[in-house]
């Protein structure tokens, strides 16, 4: 079986942005989620105006991937179609679903917004990340009651074994009613006997734990 390693990883929660265990940004506690997300965006110093059209969850996922990217590049030397993206969460797109639902109860004016509706699917955050980084390979979005390291590690291993991907961005991303939590890891195969960050169920569980408030 192919040995897989984590090349780098990022976490974002209500308190901070962390990259490979190093704190990159601490949010102002009095800020709302939207303001925190904007602060994380500004701190990157990149120009991506489409950021402001995204819903909170897509912003969160986009940021998580962007922090992983070195000098704006998530991966190099690999064809776009060989890079996979496997994401997960519990709430699907519930945050935006609730916003959209509210707009349907407007008695005076029935004007559902396509710009809001488009974000009422779990995998749209994946779409935004794919567009930003040119990821054209395998996609999947799995919904679970809690972070499921077992399923994620198994599924990603399967993709590598099947040669359905050569690299994979895997993680958890959830933004709901002002609460943010994401854990992303960029996975590659390795010939190292003992990689520093082995992509294993235990290790991924630990990374998720570090994002606990």
């Amino acid at each position, binding site marked *: 079986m192919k040995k897989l390693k984590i090349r780098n990883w990022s976490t974002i929660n209500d308190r901070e942005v962390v990259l490979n265990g190093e704190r990159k940004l601490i949010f102002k506690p009095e800020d709302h989620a939207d303001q925190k997300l904007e602060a994380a965006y500004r701190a990157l110093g990149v120009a991506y*105006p489409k950021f*402001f*059209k995204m819903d909170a969850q897509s912003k969160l996922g986009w940021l998580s991937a962007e922090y992983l990217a070195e000098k704006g590049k998530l991966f190099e030397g690999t064809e776009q179609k060989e890079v996979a993206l496997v994401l997960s969460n519990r709430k699907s797109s519930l945050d935006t679903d609730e916003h959209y639902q509210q707009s349907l109860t407007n008695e005076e*004016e029935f*004007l559902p*917004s*396509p*710009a809001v509706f*488009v974000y009422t699917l779990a995998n749209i955050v994946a779409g935004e990340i794919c567009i930003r980084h040119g990821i054209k390979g395998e996609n999947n979005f799995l919904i679970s009651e809690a972070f499921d390291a077992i399923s994620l590690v198994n599924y990603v291993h399967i993709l590598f074994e099947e040669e359905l991907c050569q690299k994979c961005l895997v993680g958890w991303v959830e933004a709901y009613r002002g609460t943010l939590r994401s854990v992303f890891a960029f996975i590659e195969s390795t010939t190292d006997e003992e990689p520093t960050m082995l992509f294993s169920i235990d290790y991924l569980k630990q990374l998720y734990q570090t994002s606990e408030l």
Partner: protein
Amino acid sequence: MSELIAKLKQQIVDQLNLADVDPATIDENAPLFGEGLGLDSIDALELILLMQKNYNIKIATAEDGQKIFSSVRAMADFIEAYQKA
């Protein structure tokens, strides 16, 4: 007319979530789609909502919208013509 154009620019920025765009910097004669602000198909639909919400103008299809939304000035002209009718 210039008041309408100024108002429209602000409404466009609000409706389309163009957070980093200062309405005053939008050239009313520049194309809205393709170049200029580089708006896309969802933006076109949102502009249709804008017309409905703010001016009570109903635009049936995205295709009808294309001509009307070719620039801010084109939008303003259309609104004025509609209001005079």
